[in-house]
């Protein structure tokens, strides 16, 4: 408040102004090594200097364009060009100053009055951001001034947010609180919650101030309550074990404490006895007894007291927060569901290739994860050549398919073909392929994670409101998963290829006698499953890390997805992915501090689930299923 008054005063009297250069010179040390804790006077001095260039200097400083020349002159950098504070070009070398984020925030805050009325909308936006980040009482008149000049809905919302916090008139604050109705935005809650901040106090009489509630001793616990009294200076500290021990040590004489042999003090009971003996002998002062503790607790009151003195304001804030609590809860649930859906679609995408190679062809391909990894590296390699992210994605997706399709075909021809009758050995051989591919990836791309960057249109979030949002990449993965579900259904059910794949899977010899080439079909189907893994790899690489171990993260879960869902059914895989995704997020929600536990319990649940449905959620039944 004080500062604003000063500012207004100085702005009104430009004659007394000191120029910006002089201010900077005065505070040279703070300017060159700025700290948020010490820089406030400098900024204030600059802002109030009255120098018309002050705003420019502050803005340049915040942008890290304020620089110092070798001779100590402050200049403003604009690309390579230098100019002095008044805007005249200068020649020479200068080192830019690097104020940290905290300092920049303060500068931005100080710039608010200049920017709020700036014709440039970007500058006004910056001012709004600065206020939203560091709301301060002195912003209120500036906003109201700006609002008086021109109506601006976003500014008026900001004004109400500031009013409910900083307006001197409680009635105005209550009105501002109530004006928001059922709004559940984060900024509103961020403004309301501090009003309800409490401190816990212990008093001998009734507590003072805006009391939130009194707390019974039973809730605090006897120890906790007494500690509170002690820290409030209302009761003497109790004897701690350490202190008792120190007293014993201090009173050792001739290998004895109060007549008891030191060697026998190897239990706590013996030490307590020894201390009592010392008390009895008057060597140490008696410690507070249980009765004294009880008496002290009886006479004291414990309460939570609001920092905000005005009860009307706290009541209104509490009412408002309670009112939006259910909505917030619902939104959080929706957000969680969206997260779960997103995780499910990631698992589905990773597993859909397996749904073909494992679900339909019954080939256990432990190198499936490495195909995902190959897809991701393909995406990376494409980005090295095609710098445009959108274009590179357009190239990478089909290329990843081709690369992994080829790898799949090669694997089928060279290895799996010879093992169709030995499924468990396929597991071992493809595991060998898996470790080969991982090491090859390390040898080729190195062990460091490689960047795979989403284009801008995919790098943001789909924001439904403050609480419910999901990143665009996840939306894209969800869409991709749906797309592949459709593609899978189309290929398997509507195309000749699908028919032949299914025929070969059920009876390769007979299929051959029908003129279908099982070798070709197996190769194509395996290639297709692998190719989809490659595309999944690009998608996964966009939101996670691209390393040679990328595939390992998904392999166990992918197999579980297919098995839990029911082998041979794409809807089973879908159901499996959904089950795993929702389960994991649900458990994470129950225990937000330990993501690892969520994974553990999720897997345990799946294992138990399989006991009850050994053939998965959607199981083939009847004679046709065979045995």
């Amino acid at each position, binding site marked *: 408040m004080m500062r604003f008054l000063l500012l207004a005063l100085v702005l009104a009297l430009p004659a007394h102004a000191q120029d910006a250069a002089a201010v900077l010179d005065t505070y040279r040390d703070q300017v060159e090594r700025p700290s948020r804790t010490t820089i406030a006077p400098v900024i204030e001095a600059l802002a109030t200097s009255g120098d018309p260039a002050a705003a420019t200097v502050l803005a340049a400083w915040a942008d890290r364009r304020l620089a110092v020349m070798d001779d100590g002159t402050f200049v403003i950098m604009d690309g390579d060009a230098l100019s002095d504070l008044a805007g005249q070009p200068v020649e020479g070398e200068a080192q830019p100053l690097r104020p940290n984020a905290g300092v920049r925030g303060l500068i931005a805050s100080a710039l608010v009055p200049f920017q709020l009325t700036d014709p440039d909308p970007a500058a006004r936006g910056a001012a709004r951001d600065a206020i939203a980040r560091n709301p301060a009482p002195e912003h209120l008149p500036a906003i109201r001034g700006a609002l008086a000049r021109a109506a601006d809905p976003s500014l008026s919302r900001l004004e109400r947010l500031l009013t409910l916090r900083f307006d001197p008139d409680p009635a105005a604050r209550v009105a501002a609180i109530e004006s928001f109705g059922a709004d559940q935005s984060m900024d509103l809650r961020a403004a309301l919650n501090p009003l309800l901040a409490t401190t816990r106090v212990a008093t001998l009489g009734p507590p003072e101030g805006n009391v939130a509630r009194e707390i019974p001793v039973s809730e605090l616990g006897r120890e906790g309550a007494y500690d509170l009294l002690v820290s409030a200076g209302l009761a003497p500290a109790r004897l701690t074990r350490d202190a008792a021990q120190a007293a014993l040590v201090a009173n050792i004489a001739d290998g004895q404490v109060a007549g008891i042999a030191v060697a026998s003090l190897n239990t706590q009971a013996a030490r307590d006895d020894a201390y009592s003996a010392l008390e009895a002998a008057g060597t140490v002062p008696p410690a507070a007894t249980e009765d004294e503790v009880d008496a002290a607790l009886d006479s004291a009151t414990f309460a939570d007291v609001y920092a905000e003195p005005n009860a009307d304001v706290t009541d209104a804030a509490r009412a408002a927060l309670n009112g939006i609590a259910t909505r917030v809860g619902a939104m959080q649930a929706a957000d969680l569901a969206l997260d779960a859906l997103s995780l499910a679609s990631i698992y589905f995408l990773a597993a859909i290739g397996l749904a073909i190679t494992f679900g339909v062809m019954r080939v256990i391909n432990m190198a499936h994860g490495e195909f995902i990894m190959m897809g991701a590296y393909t995406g990376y390699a494409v980005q090295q050549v095609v710098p445009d992210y959108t274009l590179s994605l357009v190239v990478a997706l089909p290329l990843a398919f081709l690369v992994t399709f080829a790898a799949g075909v090669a694997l089928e021809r060279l290895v799996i073909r010879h093992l169709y009758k030995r499924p468990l050995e396929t597991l071992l051989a493809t595991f060998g392929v898996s470790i080969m591919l991982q090491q090859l990836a390390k040898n080729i791309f190195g062990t460091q994670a490689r960047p795979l960057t989403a284009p801008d249109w995919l790098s943001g979030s789909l924001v439904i409101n403050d609480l419910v949002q999901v990143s665009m990449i996840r939306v894209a993965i969800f869409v991709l998963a749906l797309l592949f579900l459709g593609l899978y259904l189309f290929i398997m059910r509507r195309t000749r290829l699908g028919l032949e794949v299914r025929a070969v899977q059920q009876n390769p010899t007979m299929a051959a006698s029908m003129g279908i080439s099982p070798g070709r079909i197996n190769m194509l189907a395996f290639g297709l499953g692998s190719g989809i893994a490659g595309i999944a790899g690009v998608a996964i690489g966009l939101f996670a890390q691209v390393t040679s171990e990328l595939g390992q993260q998904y392999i166990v879960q992918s197999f579980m997805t297919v098995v839990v869902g029911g082998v041979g059914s794409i809807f089973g895989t879908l159901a499996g992915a959904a089950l795993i995704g929702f389960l994991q997020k649900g458990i994470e929600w129950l225990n937000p501090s330990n993501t690892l536990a969520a994974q553990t319990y999720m897997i345990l649940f799946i294992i138990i689930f399989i006991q009850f449905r050994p053939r998965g959620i959607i199981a083939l*039944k*009847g*004679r*046709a299923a065979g045995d």
Partner: protein
Amino acid sequence: MSALLEVRGISVSFDGFRAINNLSFAIGAAELRAVIGPNGAGKTTFMDIVTGKTRPDSGDVIFGDPPRSLLRMTEAQIARAGVGRKFQRPTVFEDQTVGANLMMALRAPRNPFAVLRFRATDGHHARVVELAAEVGLADHLHRIAGELSHGQKQWLEIGMLLAQEPRLLLVDEPAAGMTLAEREHTTTLLTRLAQTRAVVVVEHDMEFVRRLDCRVTVLHEGAVLAEGSLDHVTADRQVIDVYLGRG
């Protein structure tokens, strides 16, 4: 004649397809019975239910003396209770010798710990040799079962079945793939076995069934269509319509 096996009104369906429909069936302690019927009539499912492989949706299966329900028993318990089954395709353990196959089937305690402690006595060996002789494999005791011919595997399986000493034998198409001489041998064997135990034979070959000279049960769509002597059932109008056809 008190029944050894009594099947009471069992039904089972898969995916809406009624494989067995309120089927009742009984067989005495020493009886030979042929079960015939078109494919899909439920013959195999019937065997699956009796041996515990498939659980019926309703009905009950009572076996033995004192009679008890087989429905709450596992396949292994049913087998131990005295129900032996021969499959259509010979299923012997191809990796092991003929002797080991028979030894495994020999009546002896079946739980893991007993098996672990099991040491073959001379009596056991003698019994194995005897069984092998009975099924014509006396010279092949030390051969690996996988090297046997198709027919020899069939015989080995029958030998294993005998080793189990079952009270009820379920035999699925025993004559499939046998020469005439072999068929005759089989007929004799089955008839002889039926003197001391119940034998149910599922068969298509009418000639073979005729030679067995026993009661015949005709299954159709999961239920008994007709029962009686072969002449009786082949004269049955319904049987001719759905199964035998008009010459």
